[in-house]
């Protein structure tokens, strides 16, 4: 099986619980776990979207594990894991991917080299 994304990190992390709605920009050095709703710009080392989670906006992370819903722009520098309850729509870029049966991918899917991903993240930060 695939190792779990975003565990045992000593770096700063954030947890958005179920029912919590957050709108805005966020930079997380560690793991961002979203069980509630997030809308905006998110830059993090890893992103974990729980079953009840809903994330939309400009998301750029190194690794992501999706059990809930992710919309708009998602850039994953290294590994993207979509679990069976996960659903991603919009523009997705990744360098490694795994989708469990039942997981949904819709929109424009693109594979990128990790170096390209970095450039993409920089341009997102600049707002280009």
């Amino acid at each position, binding site marked *: 099986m695939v190792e779990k994304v975003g565990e045992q990190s000593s770096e700063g992390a954030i947890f958005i619980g179920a029912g919590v709605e957050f709108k805005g920009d966020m930079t997380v050095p560690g793991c961002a776990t979203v069980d509630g709703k997030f809308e905006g710009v998110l830059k993090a080392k890893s992103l974990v979207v729980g079953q009840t989670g809903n994330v939309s906006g400009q998301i750029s992370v190194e690794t992501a594990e999706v059990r809930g819903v992710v919309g708009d722009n998602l850039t994953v520098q290294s590994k993207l894991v*979509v679990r069976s309850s996960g659903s991603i729509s919009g523009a997705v870029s990744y360098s*490694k*991917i795994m*989708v469990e*049966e039942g997981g*949904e*991918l819709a929109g424009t899917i693109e*594979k990128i080299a990790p170096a390209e991903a970095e450039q993409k993240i920089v341009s997102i930060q600049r707002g280009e």
Partner: protein
Amino acid sequence: MYDCSLIVVPQHEDEVAEYDWGNFPPNKHHKGKTSFSIIDESAGIEGKLIARTAFIHGQVQGLVFAEHVTIEATGRVDGIIFCRTLNVLGSVRANIVCDNVIVRSGGRLSANLKYRSMKVEPGGLVGGQFERRVVIDGRAKPGPATPVAMTANRNGQ
């Protein structure tokens, strides 16, 4: 024998979605036998491949219309794929309408894809425009075969 040229290839994704695979001529013709077609490594097809189950080790340029399609590690398909289940271990660049798609490790799928359920194993590669088809009624349609499926259409595409 059925006349292959009488098989109407769906022109639209909705037709594939409602396609009555139980009355797909190659399915009816096999009469319970286990039958499949292999395009081997040295073979290539330009045009239409219509089969019940197809294992593609070689190259296909054009249309693949089958209930079950497996593109093996050495296989390559460029064109259009209409099927029920699609297994990708090789390389595909196509417009695809299917029910289930599985991209295995080493498989490369670059497609305009409409699917119902998908799975990408680690090491698989996917790209392109994807769209999930909404399942209105997962069960096979009751009643006789759709008359459309028996209309003559020699052009195919």
